[in-house]
C-alpha cells in the first residue's frame, strides 16, 4: 500500500472537546494571519504570500481527494480555471451582477465534478489519473481554440465593478488585505474539511478507499460517496479560482493547463495529503522554494521533479506527515 494514503491512524471518533479545540485554533489562525499582514511591510513579499495562499486552497482541494478517495487527480486545473473563466466571461458579457457571477463560478465546476464523477469515479488508481489528465486538458484546448469567446492564448482582463457585496474591489487586489481574506478562507476550508473528515461521511469514504468491496458488503453504495468527495474537492478548488480572479483580474488558458494541476498535486504530496492541512503547507513551501531557487538557477522544473521523487521515496507521508509524527513522538501519548 502506498505510504501517501496509509501509514498512521488518521481517523478516530473525536470526542466533542476536540471540535471546540479545532474551532479555537481556526479563530487563532485567522487572528495570526491578520497580525502577520499588519507586520509585514513589503508588498512584494505579501504578493508572493497571497499567491501562495490562493494556490494552497487549490492544493487543499486536490489533497482532500487523495485523502478520502485515495486517487490522484491530474486535472483539477479544470475546476479552478472554469471558475476563473465563469466570472471573467459573465462580467465581460455583462449578463449578471458580480455576486451572481461568483456564485455561478462556484456552482459550475462543482456541478461538473458531480456529473463527471458519476462517469469516472469507479475507474481505479492509475487509470483515474490518466483520465483526469486528459479530461482536464480538454478544457484547456477548448479555451485555446474558442478564441472569439475566451480570447484564446492571450486571455483577457476582467472588468470588476468598484464594489463586491459592498466591499471595495480594490481590497481584493491589495496584497495585504487580500492575504487576510484568502488566509481566512483557507483556514475556514481546512476547518470545514476537518469536520467533514471526522464525520460519519468522512469515515465512510476512508473505509471505501481502504476496502471498497467490504464497504458494499456491509451495506453501502460506494459510488455516490466517492462522487461527493470529488464534488467537494472541486468546490474547494473553485473557491481558489474565484479568489485568483478577484486578485489578478486577468484570465488566460494557463489557469486550465495541466501543469497547474500537476503543481497543485506536487504541493499536496510534498506537504502530505494525509493531513487536511498538509497540502496547504506544501503549497507554501513550494512557493518559497521556487522563489529562492528561481534566483539562482533556471532549472526550477528539474528541481521540483527531483524533490517530488525524493519525497515519494523517502518521506511518503510528506513534510506535514513527518512533522506530525515528530510532534506526536515528542508530545503525544499512546
Amino acid at each position: 500500500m502506498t505510504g501517501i494514503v496509509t501509514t498512521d491512524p488518521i481517523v478516530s471518533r473525536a470526542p466533542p472537546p476536540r471540535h471546540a479545540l479545532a474551532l479555537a485554533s481556526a479563530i487563532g489562525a485567522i487572528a495570526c494571519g491578520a497580525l502577520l499582514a499588519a507586520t509585514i511591510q513589503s508588498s512584494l513579499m505579501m504578493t508572493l504570500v497571497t499567491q501562495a495562499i490562493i494556490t494552497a486552497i487549490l492544493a487543499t482541494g486536490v489533497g482532500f481527494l487523495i485523502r478520502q478517495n485515495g486517487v490522484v487527480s491530474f486535472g483539477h486545473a479544470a475546476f479552478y480555471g472554469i471558475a476563473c473563466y465563469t466570472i471573467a466571461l459573465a462580467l465581460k458579457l455583462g449578463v449578471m451582477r458580480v455576486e451572481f457571477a461568483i456564485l455561478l463560478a462556484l456552482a459550475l465546476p462543482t456541478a461538473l465534478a458531480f456529473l463527471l464523477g458519476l462517469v469516472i469515479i469507479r475507474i481505479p488508481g492509475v487509470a483515474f489519473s490518466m483520465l483526469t489528465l486528459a479530461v482536464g486538458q480538454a478544457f484547456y484546448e477548448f479555451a485555446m481554440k474558442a478564441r472569439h469567446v475566451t480570447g484564446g492564448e492571450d486571455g483577457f482582463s476582467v472588468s470588476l465593478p468598484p464594489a463586491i457585496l459592498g466591499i471595495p474591489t480594490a481590497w481584493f487586489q491589495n496584497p495585504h488585505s487580500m492575504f487576510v481574506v484568502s488566509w481566512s478562507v483557507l483556514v475556514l476550508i481546512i476547518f470545514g474539511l476537518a469536520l467533514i473528515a471526522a464525520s460519519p461521511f468522512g469515515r465512510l469514504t476512508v473505509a471505501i478507499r481502504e476496502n471498497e468491496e467490504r464497504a458494499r458488503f456491509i451495506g453501502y453504495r460506494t459510488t455516490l460517496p466517492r462522487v461527493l468527495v470529488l464534488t467537494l474537492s472541486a468546490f474547494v478548488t473553485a473557491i481558489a479560482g474565484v479568489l485568483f480572479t478577484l486578485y489578478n483580474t486577468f484570465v488566460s488558458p494557463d489557469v486550465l493547463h495541466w501543469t497547474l494541476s500537476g503543481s497543485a498535486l506536487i504541493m499536496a504530496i510534498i506537504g502530505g495529503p494525509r493531513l487536511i492541512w498538509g497540502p496547504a503547507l506544501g503549497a507554501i513551501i513550494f512557493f518559497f522554494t521556487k522563489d529562492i531557487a528561481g534566483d539562482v538557477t533556471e532549472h526550477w522544473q528539474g528541481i521540483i521533479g527531483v524533490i517530488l521523487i525524493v519525497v515519494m521515496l523517502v518521506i511518503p507521508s510528506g513534510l506535514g506527515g513527518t512533522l506530525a509524527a515528530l510532534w506526536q513522538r515528542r508530545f503525544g501519548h499512546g
Partner: protein
Amino acid sequence: MAESHAIEGSKLTRQFGGFFALKGVDLAVKRGEIRGLIGPNGAGKSTLIDVLSGRAEHRSGTVRMFGTDISAMTAQQRRHAGLARSFQRTNIFPDLTVIDQLDIASRAAEMPNIDEIMAELNLTALAFRRAANISYGDQRRLDLALALIGRPKILLLDEPAAGLSIGESLELAHILKDLAARWGVTVLLVEHDMEVVFSICDRITVLHLGAILAEGTPDQIRGVPEVVTAYLGSSV
C-alpha cells in the same frame, strides 16, 4: 406449502469458459440452522457463497431468501435485506479503528448494537486500536463482527477460522453457535477445520467439482464412504 427456507439456491450454475464452478447446485437452509459446507479445494464452496451473497453473478438458477427471489439484488441490497457475509481472507478496514468501522457498519444496518457486538466478540478492549495493529485472531473476530452488526438474519461465512490456532478456532466456533442460537441467525459456514464444522453444524453439505456429493447431519456425513475416502480421510 411448508415454511420457506431462510436461504435457498436452486439450480445454481456458474462457469468460466468451459469450466463449471457450480453445476446446478440446489441448496436450502432452514431458518435458525447452522449449515456446514465442506469439500476439497476448488469444489465451488466460495463460489457458492459469492453467488448467494451477490458478489458473483451466476449463469442460471435463482437465489431465494425467505421465499423471495433476490437474484437480481446487489450485494448492498442483500445486506439491507438481512444477508451478511464474511470473506476468506481477512477483509476489514486496516486504517480505521475497531470502533470506527463497527460504527460505519452499524449505520448501514441501522442498528447501533456496537457495544453488544464488541462485548460478544471480545473486542471492547481494542475499540480505539487501529485494525491494522491488532492481532490476526482479533482481526478475524473483527471481520465476523462487521458481518454480525445489525443482527443479520442470515450469515454466510467463508472460512472464518482460517489461520487461527486450534484453541482460537474452537473459541470462535463457540461464540458463533451461541450468537446464532440467541439471535436466531441462520448460518452457512464454509470451513476447512473439520473439528469446527462437526462440532457446531446442524447439517453438512459436501460439494465436489461444483455439485453436491452428500448432505445430512454430521453423523450421517461421517457414514458416507465416498466422503470419507474423497475428503475426510480417516481422521474423523
